C-alpha cells in the first residue's frame, strides 16, 4: 500500500540512533526551532528513570535468591511475554531449586493499569455491576506491583530469600549498588526496611516504564490502530466475533478489550474474578493432599476473605482473576493451576466443560472401556471412556461453593450431552483470533492467501 503517512518511518530509527544512549533524548535531529513548544522525540522510548534502571538490574539478578540461581526473569521470561518459558503447571524454586510452586506463572505484561483489589471494583466496561476486581497475583492479595515483589522474593518455594534484610544485603553487594545509591541516595542502604521498599519500588518502576512490559505490538494492535499490515483475515475477524458474541464465545465479557479505566484500552481483562471451577491438577504436588483446596480470593494464600470455617458460606471461594489474554498463545500452562496446556484444549474446555464433563473431570466407580466410541472426544484431559460411574465435576471446589460458579456463557451449566455453544469451526476461528494478540507481530511481506486462519 503506497503513499501513506509513512514518510517518517525510515527517518525515525536514524533519529533514535543518533540520540540513543544518552539520558537526554527529548529532542531529535529533526528541526527543533528555538521556540516553545519544542518538538519531542517521536518514536524513541523515554529513557528509563534511575529507579527503573535499578529495577532492570534487579529483575535479572539471580543472586537475589536463596539458591543463587533464580531471578525474576527465570519464571517471567521476557521471551515468553514475561511468563514461564515452559509448559510446567508450576515452577520449581527454593534454596535447592526443588520446591514446587502452587500456581502457574502469570505474565507480567500489561499490568500498569491494574487497580488495587476491591470487593466492589467498578467494571471497566461501564455496564457490568461492580464486583471483586483488581490487585496482583491470581487472588489479588497484593495491591501494587511494588508490593507484589515481596511474594516471590521471600516465598520459600520461589526465590527463597530469608528476609528483606537478606535481599538488601545482596543488593548492597551487587555490582549495581552504586546505581542504587544514585537512585535512592547515599544512605539508601542504612535503613533495611526503607532499602527493601526501594527495591520493590525499583522493580515496579522497571515494569511500569520499560516498553517491553507493554509493547502493544500485536497484529490486533495494528488492526485497531488502522495501520498498514493490520488487516485481519476473514478467519480472524470471525474469531473476533466469536470472542465478543455473548451467545457463543462471550470471552470479552471478562477478557474485556474495550475502553477501560484510566484511559486504558484493549487490555483483554476487566480485572475481575470469577469461579469457573477448572479441574484439579494433580501435577501440582500440593494437590496430592486431598484436604488442600486452592480457592483463590478466599484462601488459603490470601487470608483476608477466609471462610469462617471450611464450608461456611463465602462468595469469594473459588474466584480467580481473569488474566489478560494478550500473548495467550505463548503460554504453556493455562488457568491458575496450569491444568490445560494448549489453546486448542483451552477453548474446548470452555466449550464442553458442561456438555462433556467426563473428558475434563475424573470418573469414579465406572468401568474403563478399552476402545472408546468413535465420537468420544480426544481433546480432553481424560481420554478414557467409562461405562457407568460418576463424573467428579468441579473436583477442585468444595461442594459448599458450587453456588459461586459463574453462570455466564459459554459456561452456562447446560446439560451434559447437549449441544455446546461453539462449533469446531468457530473455535478454530477463535484460536486464529487469539493468535493475533501476540506481541512483536511483523506483517509478512507476502501474506498467505489460503490457510486455516486466512480463509
Amino acid at each position, binding site marked *: *500500500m503506497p503513499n501513506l503517512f509513512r*514518510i517518517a518511518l525510515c527517518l525515525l530509527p536514524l533519529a533514535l540512533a543518533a540520540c540513543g544512549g544518552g539520558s537526554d533524548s527529548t529532542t531529535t535531529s529533526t528541526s527543533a526551532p528555538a521556540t516553545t513548544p519544542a518538538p519531542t522525540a517521536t518514536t524513541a522510548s523515554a529513557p528509563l528513570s534511575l529507579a527503573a534502571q535499578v529495577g532492570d538490574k534487579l529483575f535479572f539478578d539471580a543472586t537475589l535468591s536463596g539458591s543463587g540461581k533464580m531471578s525474576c526473569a527465570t519464571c517471567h521470561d521476557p521471551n515468553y511475554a514475561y511468563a514461564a518459558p515452559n509448559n510446567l503447571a508450576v515452577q520449581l524454586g527454593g534454596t535447592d531449586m526443588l520446591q514446587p510452586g502452587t500456581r502457574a506463572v502469570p505474565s507480567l505484561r500489561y499490568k500498569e493499569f491494574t487497580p488495587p483489589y476491591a470487593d466492589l471494583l467498578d467494571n471497566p466496561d461501564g455496564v457490568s455491576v461492580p464486583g471483586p476486581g483488581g490487585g496482583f497475583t491470581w487472588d489479588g492479595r497484593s495491591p501494587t506491583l511494588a508490593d507484589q515483589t515481596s511474594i516471590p522474593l521471600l516465598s520459600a518455594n520461589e526465590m527463597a530469600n530469608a528476609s528483606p534484610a537478606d535481599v538488601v544485603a545482596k543488593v548492597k553487594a551487587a555490582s549495581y549498588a552504586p546505581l542504587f545509591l544514585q537512585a535512592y541516595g547515599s544512605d539508601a542502604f542504612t535503613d533495611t526496611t526503607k532499602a527493601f521498599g526501594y527495591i520493590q519500588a525499583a522493580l515496579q518502576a522497571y515494569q511500569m516504564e520499560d516498553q517491553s512490559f*507493554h509493547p502493544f505490538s500485536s497484529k490486533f494492535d495494528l488492526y485497531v490502530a488502522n495501520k498498514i499490515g493490520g*488487516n485481519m483475515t476473514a478467519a480472524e475477524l470471525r474469531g473476533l466475533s466469536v470472542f465478543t458474541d455473548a451467545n457463543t464465545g462471550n470471552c470479552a465479557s471478562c477478557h474485556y478489550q474495550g475502553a477501560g479505566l484510566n484511559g486504558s484500552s484493549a487490555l483483554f481483562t476487566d480485572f475481575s474474578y470469577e469461579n469457573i471451577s477448572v479441574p484439579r491438577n494433580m501435577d501440582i504436588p500440593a494437590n496430592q493432599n486431598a484436604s488442600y483446596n486452592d480457592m483463590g480470593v478466599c484462601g488459603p494464600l490470601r487470608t483476608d476473605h477466609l471462610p469462617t470455617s471450611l464450608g461456611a458460606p463465602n462468595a469469594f471461594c473459588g474466584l480467580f482473576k481473569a488474566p489478560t489474554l494478550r500473548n495467550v498463545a505463548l503460554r504453556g500452562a493455562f488457568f491458575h493451576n496450569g491444568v490445560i496446556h494448549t489453546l486448542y484444549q483451552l477453548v474446548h474446555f470452555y466449550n464442553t466443560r458442561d456438555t462433556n464433563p467426563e473428558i475434563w473431570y475424573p470418573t469414579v466407580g465406572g468401568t474403563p472401556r478399552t476402545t472408546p466410541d468413535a465420537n468420544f472426544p480426544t481433546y480432553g484431559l481424560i481420554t478414557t471412556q467409562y461405562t457407568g460411574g460418576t463424573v467428579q465435576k468441579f473436583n477442585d471446589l468444595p461442594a459448599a461453593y458450587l453456588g459461586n460458579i459463574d453462570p455466564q456463557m459459554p459456561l452456562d451449566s447446560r446439560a451434559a450431552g447437549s449441544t455446546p455453544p461453539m462449533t469446531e469451526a468457530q473455535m478454530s476461528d477463535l484460536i486464529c483470533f487469539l493468535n493475533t494478540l501476540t506481541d512483536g507481530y511483523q506483517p509478512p511481506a507476502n501474506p498467505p492467501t489460503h490457510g486455516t486462519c486466512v480463509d
Partner: protein
Amino acid sequence: MANLQYVGFTTTLTTIAAACMLAGCGGSDSGTSTSAPGAQVKISGVVNSTAYTPGSTANPTLAAGYIKGATVCVDSNNDGICEASENPVTTDANGKFTLTVSAVGPIIADISSSATNTASGAAVTAHEILRASLAQVTEQQAAGLVVVSPMSSEVQRMVEDNNTSYQTEKANLASRVGVTAAQVLGDLTTLTGTAQTLAVTEANALNNRYVYATKKFDNKELYPDALAVPGGDPELASLAVSSATNTVTTDTRQPITFLQAQQAAFNVEGIPRYDSVFIVMLENKGTTTILGSQYAPKINGYLQAGNQFTSYYATGNPSEPNYTALGGADDWGITDDSQWNCDATGANAVQDLPVPDNTQPGLANSPFTTTCTQASGINHNIVGRANLFTALSSKGLRWRTYSESMNPGQDFRTDGIADSAVTATDHVYAPGTLAGNTTAIGNAALTLPMPAGLYKTKHHPGMAYQNVRSAPEWKFSNRTLGGGQWDAVLTSGTKYAVPAGYNVDQFGSDLQSGDVGQINFLMPDQCDDMHSIGVTGTVSGGGTGTASDCSGNNIIVRGDNYVDYLVKKIQASPLWANKQKRIAIVLMFDEGTATTGHNSCCGWVPGSSGAAASTSTNPLSKGTNGQYAQDTSIHNYNFGNHGHGESIFVVLTNQASAPTKVSDSDAYSHFSFVRTLQDMFQLADPTDDSTYMNRSKYTEKFIAQNILNLPEYQSSADTHFDSVRPMNHAYVIPATYRELQSSDVTTAAQVGPDATQKGVWAVK
C-alpha cells in the same frame, strides 16, 4: 470596466466574471437605472457600523455607529471595487456621504483600516466591503437617506442566493431579525429598545461574515474551500495519503470572485450559517442500542424523518473527556470523570477563586472537594485553551448551556445533591407505553426524594476550561432546563437558599423570547439522559422501591420520551416557526459502548493509547515561529483510550426546503463536530489550520504535512479515516471502499458511496 488599481486591489478577469454573473442572476435589481442623458442625481446616505465590547456579564455588549472615512461609490460595474472612474467619496465623521452621479446605481462602501468606527471610536481593524443594491438605493434615495450596512449587503446576498427580489428579501431579513422592513434597512443608530438590540445583534453577526467575505476576496482564495470540494480535498494529490480513499487528483479551483465570496462567507467549508443549534446530549448508548430499538421509538422516528450521520465516533471514555472534547476538540489527557480542580497545579492552577466549597456563603451543602490529588496526576483544569464558548463570545456571539434538575441556588460548578425535601412520584407507564408492556410499569405509591447527581459537572462541555468558568457571562449563560421529574417542587429545596423568582425552565422562557445562544448545549439530568443513577424511595403503606425508569432498558424509554418533549418544545416555539432563522436540533450521545473494531476515528488513533505508548503523541500547536510542534506541557496525554465507538447522530432543521432523510456515512468524531460548529458560526478560517481549535485542525492535509511530529499517525492504512473533516458530505466514498466499523454498529459495512451527497446541514 476600468482596469485600474484602487485601494490596493487589482481588477482582474475575475471581476469581469463577477459582473457578468451579477447581471445574469440579479434580474431587474442589478445594473444602473436609465436616466436622461446629462442629468445628475444626488444620493445621500450613511454607512452603519457595529462594535462589540467584551466583558458583559449578560448578552454581548454591542453598539451601533457609523464608519468615518469609508470610501463610497456607485459600483456601476458591480465588481465590488470603487474604481477611480466611479468617482468615490469618503464618509464624514457622522458616516455621511453624498454621491453625485449620472444615474442611480448599486452602492458599495469600502471600509479600510484608515476608516474609523464611531461605535467604538477605534480605527477599523479589518477590511470590509458592504453594499446596497440598486433597488434599495432607488427606494431610499427618494427618501433622502441610503443606509449601507451589513443588513443592506445581506439583503442583496439573499436576493442573489435565492434568485428572488429586493422586497422579498428585505421582508425576510426583517422577519429573521424581528423588526419591521423599514427598520431593518434603516439607520441602526436611530433604532431604540428591543428593535435596536435585535438589529445590532444581527448586524454584528453579519459584519463578522462580510469582513470574512472581504478577506476571501482580497486574498483571491481558491473557491470553494478545499474541504468543500465535491469528491474530496484536491490539495491531497501531492501528499502522502492513502490512495484508496483519495481519488481526487487535480485541483481545478479558481480564485474566488466578489459575489462568490459574499456567499462563501455564509457557507464555510460547505457548512451553512445557522442562527442557532440546539445540541441535546444523551449518554452512553451505541448505535445498535438505539437504532430500531423498541425502547426508543420516538428517537427512531426523528432518525427516519430527519437527517443523520451513521458513522459518528466518540473520542473517549468515560463522560468528561467526551464533553471536554465537545467543548474544545481535545480531552487534554483527562480519562476520568473527576472534579475540575483535580491536579490543577502550577500553570494549571485554578483561577476562579474561591472555589465553590462548603465554606462559601450560601454553599454550606456544597459537595465540592476543595483539593483533589489523584495518583495519575492528570490536570483537570484546562487553562488558556481555545474552546467554542470563548470563541463565540469573542465575536459578540452567544452561547448557552441548559442543564436539568440542578438544585436551586447551587453553584453551576458543583454536582447536584440529594434533597429529601424535594420529592416526586415514580413514573408509571400505562400498558402500551413502554416497549409494548401489557401491564403498567412503575408504582404510583412510590415517592422518590431527589437523589444526588442528577446534575453533574462532568456533563458540561465548558466546565473543564478555566476561561469558560471565568468568563463574565458564565453565570448568565448557564441556565435551567425544565421537564424534570422533580421540577414541580424544586423550589422547595432545602439545601441552598432558593433564589427569588427561581425559574426551573429558563430554556422554555428563552425559546419564547428567542434569546438563545448560537450554540446551545442541552444536558438532561442523569435519568433523562439515559445515564442511570440510583433513585430509591419509600412506598406509602410501607417498604422501599426503586424508580421505574432510571436504569436498565426502561431508562431508554424515559430518555426517548424526554428527547421527544424537548424536540416538540423547540418545534412549537416562535423561534422554530420563524423560518427566516435557521434553527437546527442535534440529538446525540456523548459516547457509545464499543469494545471491538475501530473505536475511534477522525483525530484519534486508538493504538497510541496506554502507558505503553513508546511515542509521544502530544498535540501539535503553532509556535511563535509559525512552526507546529508538540505541546509537551500536557501531562499523561498518551494515556487516553481514544474513542468509545459509534452512536446515532440526528439533525433536524426548521428549513422547509432542506433535504430530509439524508444519510451521511463518512466517518466523523466529536472533533469533526467541533470543526463543523466553527464553520457554522464562522469561528475559524479554512485557509489557516491554526485558527481551528486544538484537534479540530487535524485534517488529512494537516496530518500529512506534519507527519514527522505526529508519530501516532504514521503507517496508517487509511489516512482518511484517521483525520478530521467538516460534516459536509463533500467527500465521496470510493466505489470499492468498505467502511470501517466499531462493534456499536451491527449492520453490514457499506461498500461505496452514499445514496446522495446532499449535506445533512443543507438548507435547500
